[in-house]
């Protein structure tokens, strides 16, 4: 039951479908995806051209899913995928790709290369070529309840803090409420203020919510590693908890891949529709704003810019919502170049941040962000993904840039109207 080349090839074989076949049939090797890639942009190394990163999937498709490929195989022109092939691809599939999705947006024939990277990772992980740090996180999440290990005590403590800070009751495992809140480990460990912020906003808006003590973790390292079995196992925890508590909706927190994992991949991982809906916290806040249930007073006078998390905006479709919210509380909101759908990755998403081997690539990639921030010279960068938040904060510090980073939910709570 350990990882083998054959298991990896079989996993790739399972991933080929009509979209993949149409993508590979359509690629004309124009190379336009290279310029969309933050790693190519900052290294100018042609090996980082996105379409090259899915070469093994292409080979499986050609060899096994096309009549002409079969004929080629029969006459001995096909080439088998070897251990070396997988090894060679590691740094392309994991180290130099954050699955940010920019390549998917620029491909003139419309290839969703990002989706194919996700599929490539299925093969890589099954073949035993996932980065050790991610495998470690998967183990910790499997035995514990978060990729950081057992965070039960931590979340209890953070909720207590929040209750103490806000004076608002936060109940664990309360059945029949409207919303189940889940959090990313990053938030629990590094940015717990978000719990209090949500409590305040929801209290004002009259939103009923709870946290499940069995499934409070939103992240899904299975999606980052690219292993559907692991991903399914982890997402099932949240699905079961939500359905047990009979909530109407689950709130996907400020975390990029968690939103992908829970809302878009989850139902397909478990093979059925959920008995609840999934909504992103920023979508919910914007909805409350529209309903007049989220009112703010005062504005931050700092020069503020917004960083779009790839998985939430480009790959998640939440683009206007954060801007509407930010405009409520920011007096001096300026956009960086390419902001919105074509924003550049924070430089460490998609598992790159945890991957030590990719450290130099991550640092190189951030230089693009750095230049963009320097052009705008903001006092504060607001975002809606805890991992982007974490990455930017550390990278800014490494680059001696004195810019504050904040989560949008927190920021909204800070300017919540105090009507009593």
């Amino acid at each position, binding site marked *: *039951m*350990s*990882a*083998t080349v054959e*298991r990896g090839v*079989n*996993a790739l*074989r*399972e991933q*080929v479908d009509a979209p993949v076949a149409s993508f590979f049939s359509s690629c004309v090797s124009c190379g336009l995806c290279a310029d969309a890639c933050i790693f190519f942009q900052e290294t100018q190394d042609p090996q980082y051209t996105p379409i090259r990163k899915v070469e093994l999937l292409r080979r499986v498709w050609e060899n*096994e*899913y*096309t*009549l002409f490929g*079969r004929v080629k195989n029969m006459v001995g022109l096909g080439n088998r995928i070897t*251990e070396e092939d997988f090894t060679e691809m590691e740094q392309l599939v994991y180290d130099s790709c954050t699955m940010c999705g920019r390549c998917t947006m620029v491909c003139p024939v419309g290839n969703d290369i990002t989706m194919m990277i996700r599929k490539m990772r299925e093969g890589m*992980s*099954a073949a*035993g070529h*996932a980065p*050790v740090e991610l*495998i470690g996180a*998967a*183990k910790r*999440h*499997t035995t514990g309840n978060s990729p950081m290990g057992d965070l039960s005590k931590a979340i209890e403590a953070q909720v207590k803090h929040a209750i103490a800070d806000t004076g608002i009751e936060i109940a664990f495992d309360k059945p029949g409420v409207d919303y189940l809140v889940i959090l990313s480990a990053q938030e629990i460990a590094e940015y717990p203020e978000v719990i209090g912020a949500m409590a305040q906003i929801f209290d004002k808006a009259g939103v009923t919510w709870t946290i499940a003590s069995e499934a409070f973790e939103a992240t899904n390292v299975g999606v980052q*590693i690219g*292993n559907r*079995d*692991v991903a399914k*196992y982890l997402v099932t925890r949240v699905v079961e908890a939500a359905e047990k508590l009979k909530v109407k909706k689950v709130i996907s927190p400020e975390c990029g891949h968690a939103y992908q994992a829970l809302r878009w991949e989850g139902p397909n991982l478990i093979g059925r529709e959920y008995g609840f809906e999934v909504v992103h916290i920023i979508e919910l806040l914007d909805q409350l704003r529209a309903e007049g249930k989220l009112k703010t007073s005062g504005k931050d006078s700092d020069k503020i810019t917004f960083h779009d998390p790839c998985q939430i905006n480009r790959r998640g479709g939440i683009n206007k919502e954060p801007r509407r919210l930010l405009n409520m509380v920011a007096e001096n909101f300026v956009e960086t170049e390419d902001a919105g759908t074509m924003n550049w990755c924070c430089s460490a998403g998609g598992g790159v941040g945890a991957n030590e081997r990719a450290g130099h690539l991550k640092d190189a990639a951030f230089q693009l962000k750095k230049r963009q921030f320097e052009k705008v010279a903001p006092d504060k960068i607001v975002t809606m993904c805890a991992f982007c938040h974490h990455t930017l904060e550390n990278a800014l510090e490494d680059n001696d840039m004195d810019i504050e980073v904040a989560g949008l939910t927190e920021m909204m709570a800070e300017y919540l109207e105090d009507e009593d």
Partner: protein
Amino acid sequence: MPSSPLLPKMMKAHGVSRRSFLKYCATLTSVMALPPAMAPKIAHALETAPRPSVIWLSFQECTGCTEAITRSSAPSLEELIFDSISLDYHHTLQAASGDAAEHAREEAMKAHHGKYLVIVDGSIPLDEPGYSAIAGISNLDMLKETAAGAAAIVSIGTCAAYGGLPQANPNPTGAVAVSDIITDKPIINVPGCPPIPLVMTAVLAHYLTFGIPELDELGRPKAFFAESIHDRCYRRPFYDKGLFAESFDDEGARAGWCLYKLGCKGPTTKSVCATVKWNDSTSFPIQAGHGCLGCTEPDFWDNGGFYKPLSAPAGNYRRVGQAAVVAGVAAGAGGAYLAKKNKAKALAEHETVDAFTLEKEEGES
């Protein structure tokens, strides 16, 4: 020539005098070896003629070429015959038949051995000698025999030059061109179905005055076959502007637009039709509203259909296309079936992985 009033009439139109006309009639009579009482006169003429002797052989042909050359206007036939050549044998124009006629040929051959000119119209059947024979002599034998002592041969018309209509698929007589049989004599091809009369006489005039003209790779005098009809066509501006007749009776046809879509072969046909024209430069097929058939080119009958645009495919494309659709869909479905089976097998063989089986076992590479 009471039976054929055309020639004298034509001569009159060209301003040939009465005296010339009478002289022409008299000589024609002698050329035609009629009646036997005239024989000494003919003999005398043959003996003393300083003009080159011409033997005209007609094989598998329709007489269209002869019809055309008798309508030649400049130089006119009479001028040719009077001043330039001695047409010693032409079985359409001569009244003699059987031995008398053949004698004329044999005598001309004997008397002018190595110096006479052979003009051929029509192709030569190779499958059976009996398919076409004259006085019991097969076309092949007659050609070989006559060509042996010739100074040169002029193949008049596409049949003699390239095989022409008799050679058209499926070529029932095994027809071939003169040049397929005779390889040791200079041959001038004057193709066309029929050739332009002026071109025929002009080629002869050229031969008589300057010898063999410069020929292209298909044995045609370059002077008349260097440019395509398309390049000299008065409708060419319409082609360049993209204006084409779609049918023979549409607005475009009436407005004189390009006939390419109606099958005109002008672009691949070399001839001076568009400039020299026919019937005293009156008109030519395209001017008459019909596309060029490409008659000066080898195999013109089999080159893809007279009414099919030159750019249209010429083979069995319809049936092939239908077969391709069926074969493609079937093979595609077959391929997809294999692919789906492959995927189903992969899914069935899926080993469920958990966080603890993501690594390779120790000791494995």
